[in-house]
């Protein structure tokens, strides 16, 4: 079984306009593995989500299921088969 990934509007140029794509990073995979796998099908995608040092960019939020990966293990967060991953730009609000 694969992992589904929701793609924000600004990254859909990499996915031919698809709002949701799937990837199969294999058993025991992490978010980092998932991004590697995605980048093979959609070259350049990983470089948009990660900065030059290989960290999550500070204005992007990634969720595995309902959990913000910053509350989990970041790029080492497991992405098991059947998981639903969302990539979302940071949003303004409040004061």
């Amino acid at each position: 079984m694969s992992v589904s990934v929701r793609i924000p509007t600004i990254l859909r140029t990499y996915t031919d306009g698809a709002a949701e794509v799937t990837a199969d990073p294999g058993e025991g995979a992490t978010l980092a593995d998932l991004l590697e796998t995605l980048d093979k099908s959609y070259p350049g995608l990983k470089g948009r989500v990660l900065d030059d040092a290989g960290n999550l960019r500070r204005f992007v939020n990634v969720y595995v299921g309902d959990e913000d990966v910053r509350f989990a293990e970041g790029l080492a967060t497991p992405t098991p088969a059947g998981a639903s991953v969302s990539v979302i730009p940071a949003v303004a609000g409040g004061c």
Partner: protein
Amino acid sequence: MTLLNAPAPSATAFGNAVALSCRECGTRFELGAAYACEECFGPLEVLYDVPRLTRERIESGPQSIWRYRDLLPVPADVAAHPGLQPGWTKLVKADNLARELGVRSLWVKDDSGNPTHSFKDRVVAVALSAARQLGFTTVGCASTGNLANAVAAAAARAGLRSVVFVPSNLEAGKTVTTAVYGGTLVAVEGNYDDVNRLCSEVAGDQPWGFVNINLRPYYAEGSKTVGYEVAEQLGWHLPEQVVAPVASGSLLTKVDKGFTELGKAGLVEPTPYKVFGAQATGCSPVAQAFRAGADIVKPVRPDTIAKSLAIGNPADGPYALDVVRRTGGAIADVSDEEVVEGIRQLARTEGIFAETAGGVTLAVAKKLLAEGLLDPDAETVLLNTGDGLKTLDAVAPVVGPTATIAPSYDAFQKAGLA
């Protein structure tokens, strides 16, 4: 990126604004419904080519934020469109409070005087102008309450459909004061960060103008008008210290931008000022990052009565840190008990009933004074962003009648009230 199937905005749709620019990497984009950089996800902000301005031109404008239309991404005739005309709220000289705090000169910029009783009317007015220019007929937002009020009311006045999303545990006052305007109000079973996430996904797929998402660059500019007004109301000069509440960090950042722009435009002397940020301890990711000397703001799970500040993952947090560090300010946080005491003290001394965010601001100002970070001899402005009537729950348990008596003079005398 522009809205599909929408007419292209006219050349004058955004006034003196010329482009959107990424705050992180500087990449420029056309003016449109875009909010995050396609290169690095950085937030986009509006760039202008502002002609020479005079104080006289501004002073002859309407007594609303539109007196600053030349400095906002709005058309020159913006005031002619149906709107709530927010802004030009009172700058209250707070002498009683100043005496209690031991501060020489103190003002409260009281934005509870806006049409829906919070500073959010400012940002929404600018966002709705952009929505109109971009052809959106439905506007939405993710909100902790004040923004929901402002969007629902302004959309009603402008004849637009509104769809606003709030956490389902919102204060009753904020739910009622949104629902009454007749738009669609969606209560989401989660916290504000959950609401934000949902709205980001909805904004990606629906042809709607979300004021704090795909209209964010325009929306954020509305907050500059707080800074413009403070300076103009002080007689065209910048205060030495400002204390602002911090949720996403946007307001604080834009007040700083407003002060800087006035100096660059020659409208005020560009004197130094310090910007201070206020958070509730139960949601204080920016204050924690400030104390730790960090550039990264680590998200938290909010737990505070100051729900309008309960944003665990603040989008403009890094920029708020930059501003306070650059200007020599600080960001501190206070307990919910101190927030309630702050609300009561402002009401008791100045007759201003602030919402919880205003209580946070005053309580943090007291803390910063005690710590020697806020200078008691410097001209100081506290920003009250909203009205206490919306957050009655916060003070209801601790205030009430002085006495309850029978309707007789005898009872009055016996109660010792004379």
